[in-house]
């Protein structure tokens, strides 16, 4: 069992997300950066659908009431186990009674903590991903108690030597495909969309990332249509919003681009004021 001593800015449990409930208007949810979350699971020998802790910007402080194997995957933060600095992106054994603390995240927005066997929080509509209105809690709070499976020391991690691919986050290029309303844009707007850099606004969350630059919007709102995480909408004000994992299932703004799945995780880690360039894929 793990007890939350300090929650951090926005800490929640996430997994691969909800599949098959969009017809009821249920968002996909799931880890914002699936590659990092998967990597954390691999390090402790979990299957990829095990639930991990998603940590946003500032880290939590956790008290372990049982022995287990953990891994924290992050682009940049400092991790302390019982006051001693601990390496990131590799598995480590945590003894009963230990206190794990994550400092401010300095690179990227999200860090992932995997524990052996995965967090056993409530399983609702095919997933443990926390989301307001679906799971009873949407975030972890001070005092939250998290059940984890008993650790068996005979388990060997098979992936201990796997290297975390930091390179994938070093680019500012975001791979995109054209969206359903792309062809309705003027040549000038298409060119601006694909040649200009766009800056991430501070007005961003698990639902959507807002981009600051303003385009001329010659398109009218559409009659409500389906959208997905990664759909880039052109709002009436001319600003772009990139829909993220907690986005609605339908939307009424023109869908001009669709971010590739790989790039969506990379984009998720881009911080406020960072710029990105859309790179059209065939």
């Amino acid at each position, binding site marked *: 069992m793990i007890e939350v001593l300090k929650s951090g800015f926005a800490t929640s449990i996430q997994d691969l997300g909800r*599949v*098959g*409930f*969009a*017809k*009821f*208007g*249920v*968002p996909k949810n799931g880890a914002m950066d699936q590659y990092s979350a998967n990597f954390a699971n691999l390090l402790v020998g979990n299957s990829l659908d095990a639930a991990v802790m998603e940590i946003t910007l500032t880290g939590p402080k956790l008290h372990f009431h049982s022995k287990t194997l953990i891994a924290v995957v992050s682009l940049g933060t400092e991790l302390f186990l019982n006051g001693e600095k601990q390496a990131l992106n590799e598995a480590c054994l945590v003894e009963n009674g230990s206190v794990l603390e994550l400092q401010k995240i300095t690179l990227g927005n999200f860090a992932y903590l995997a524990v052996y066997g995965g967090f056993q929080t409530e399983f*609702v*509509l095919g997933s443990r991903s926390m989301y307001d*209105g*679906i*799971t009873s809690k949407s975030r972890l709070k001070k005092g939250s108690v998290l059940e984890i499976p008993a650790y068996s020391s005979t388990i060997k991690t098979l992936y201990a030597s796997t290297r975390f691919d930091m390179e994938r986050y070093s680019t500012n290029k975001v791979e995109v*495909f054209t*969206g*359903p309303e792309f062809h309705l844009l003027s040549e000038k707007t298409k060119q601006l969309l694909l040649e200009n850099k766009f800056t991430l606004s501070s007005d961003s969350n698990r639902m959507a990332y807002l981009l600051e630059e303003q385009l001329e919007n010659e398109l009218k709102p*559409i*009659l*409500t*249509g*389906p959208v*997905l995480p*990664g*759909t880039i909408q052109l709002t009436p004000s001319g600003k772009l919003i990139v829909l993220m994992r907690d986005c*609605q*299932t*339908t939307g009424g703004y023109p*869908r001009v681009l*669709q*971010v*590739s*799945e790989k790039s969506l995780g990379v984009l998720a880690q881009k911080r406020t004021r960072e710029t990105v360039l859309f790179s059209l894929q065939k």
Partner: protein
Amino acid sequence: MNYKNPHFFVMGERSILIEWEPKIDKNLLDFILFTKKNVEKKSFEPIIEITNTYYSLLIQYHITIKNIYGEILALKSVISKLSLPKNQKKERYHLPVCYDPKFGLDLEELGNENKLNFSEIKTLHSTPIYTLYFMGFLPGFLYLGGLDKKLFLDRKKTPRKRIQKGAVGIAGKQTGIYPKSSPGGWQIIGNCPVGFFDPNKNPPSIFRPGDQVKFYSISFEEHHEISEQIKHGVFQLKSEQQ
């Protein structure tokens, strides 16, 4: 546009979007839902889920679609062969709505804009048989088409920070019900005490696209009574097959 000749779009790596003419039309919805059923039956690549809106079908696949154009050709061939059976059975639900101004925060705005009194609004809203086109926006939010023209009203210029659970609203030509409290921009004219979404049930909603909805007006007191009945699990929602 011919129903049999929709547009196809590839959305990202594993979804195909099929779009017909953008309109709210019962016959188009029937054709889209019939297409959905047939694509589900004759799945080519493994499909995760197919969802519809007014004029679209989004097909999400399990794996990246290797031969996307082959897949589109196969879908086109299915659609070209469809012939919509007549007299499809539909479930019709009767939903209680309290149009009291205590709930209907925008009754006055709607009345002023469209030159109607409260009683006219109530009658105009509870007379039609609505069609449930799809659920979206919030889990369990019903998008209903079939609103009387005299009630058309644009969304609020500034959305409200909090709209009450069960709020019945109008946005343009649509009417809908908030399944939980949420920020929102719909014009609120009443409240329906019936729960629309329970994540701890599978399926979490009893409604399906294509269902019919008819509202009946209840008083503030009856709203309270029904809410109590729902709390104790004894409320019976009226429905029948049409």
